[in-house]
């Protein structure tokens, strides 16, 4: 199925880059192939969701104005990407079952296939935010430079989370229901519709100790022209090291035997 060393698997995965680029692209396009607007389907669907949240939650929470729209338009797609990397990452091996059963394929290439499809979806979804930026060019300032650091960090973190969940899902297949429920709950426990800074007490603690808050914050705050939250940056680096390290360790220990776990 794959090479036994992590570095060997990574190296081989890079050699298979056309596989994960083409298959990842096709996975993303499979979701909109029956629509006439193509990838803009993700954009329109995000636009509708953001609008609903803006008018329903915004009114209920007392948040209005263009800055709140930008806050949701960026945070919501980012949250959905993190959520998807957890709740769908667990089934990566199952999705690639026929390939795994038929040829030697580096396992990391399967994670990258998943990652590419997620990034394409995210890209189309963030077009709503891009539209917002075009209408509000004032939010572009020197803080955007941080995005050069935080976007790759975000992508690497998503990749590490997907790798970890993939291996976890191979050994605990019933985890799906739990993860789905967890993600539904996290949507409300994560500052996507509400501002973490405006909450104190339990709500504030939930935001502070919620890792999703920090993963979102490192890209959302600079994108909204705000200073980079260094606490969040440190938390995300720690998440990347711990989750990525655990994923690589589990992969090294089990890569050959994962084939029996599909």
């Amino acid at each position, binding site marked *: *199925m794959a090479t036994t060393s992590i570095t060997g698997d990574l190296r081989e995965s890079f050699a298979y880059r*056309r596989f994960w680029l*083409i298959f990842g692209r096709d996975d993303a396009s499979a979701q909109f192939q029956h629509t006439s607007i193509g990838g803009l389907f993700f954009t329109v669907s995000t636009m509708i969701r953001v609008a609903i949240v803006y008018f329903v939650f915004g009114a209920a929470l007392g948040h209005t104005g263009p800055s709140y729209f930008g806050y949701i338009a960026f945070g919501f797609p980012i949250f959905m990407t993190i959520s998807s990397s957890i709740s769908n990452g667990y089934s990566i091996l199952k999705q690639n079952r026929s390939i795994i059963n*038929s*040829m*030697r394929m580096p396992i990391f290439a399967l994670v990258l296939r998943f990652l590419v499809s997620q990034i394409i979806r995210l890209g189309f979804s963030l077009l709503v935010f891009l539209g917002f930026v075009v209408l509000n060019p004032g939010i572009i300032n020197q803080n955007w430079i941080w995005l050069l650091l935080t976007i790759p960090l975000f992508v690497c973190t998503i990749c590490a989370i997907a790798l970890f969940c993939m291996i976890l899902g191979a050994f605990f297949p019933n985890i799906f229901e739990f993860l789905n429920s967890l993600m539904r709950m996290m949507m409300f426990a994560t500052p996507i519709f509400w501002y973490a800074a405006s909450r104190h007490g339990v709500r504030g603690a939930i935001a502070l100790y919620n890792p999703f808050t920090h993963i979102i914050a490192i890209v959302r705050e600079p994108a909204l022209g705000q200073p980079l939250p260094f606490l969040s940056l440190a938390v995300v680096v720690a998440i990347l090291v711990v989750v990525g390290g655990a994923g690589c360790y589990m992969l090294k220990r089990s890569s050959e035997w994962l*084939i029996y776990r599909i």
Partner: protein
Amino acid sequence: MALTDEAPAKEGVDSDVRLTLHDVTIEYPLSKTSSSRFSDFARTVGGQFVSHDDRRFIRALDRISLDFPNGSRVGLLGGNGSGKSTLLRTLAGILPLTAGERIIRGQIATLFSAGVGIDPEKNGIANIYRMAALYNIPRRRVPELIDDIVEFTELGEFIELPVKSYSSGMASRLGFGFVTNINADVILVDEVIGTGDNNFKDKARERMERFLADRGIIVVASHSVEVLETLCHTGLVLDQGSVAFYGDIAEAGEFHRELKKDQKKRKADS
């Protein structure tokens, strides 16, 4: 002792191409707790149930030793669950060995099902690009592959249609046409040829002969002795994960028929 196919290597062929198994055992681990954790492989294999290290396994291959040098064309015969598919996946380097040693020299292409890498919503040409990516074939080679595959498969204008509109025979031809075109050193095929009509079987044989004229090893598993007799010169009959017969393909076919009769008789008696 390893069973060796003595086929002479062709002139101008890389004589390093070789598949060797030495005392190879494959055991599928079974879950202690739940039948739902039965892996895809274990679900479809036969063999003996064995227990060790406080766990249960299905022993699908039992101390198999084989040596296929360049130029080998081997047909695998055996009943359901005899270990044909497991042996092919072992030769392909997909399954981890429980015991023994495996040496693979050469690039391997597999055709274990017609659908690997194929997106039924996309047309034949898009799927050739997908398969090329899956097998890491350089993009610049793909147009030349397309011409050859279209000619071989006789798909004509169907190549422009989504694969979901193809018959199973047409889809098989697409997959077979691809793997026999990518300059692999070894081709491992599981049953797929049996799904085509006689015309396709003839073309598949011609294609394999052409392939062997240039290079390589072919191992084909099938229930059909007739198909294997046209493609291979050596036959290997598996029974319960062990080699029951290895030799001339016609004799292997005869042995397989007798074995099936014996098994039927034993079943009826019991």
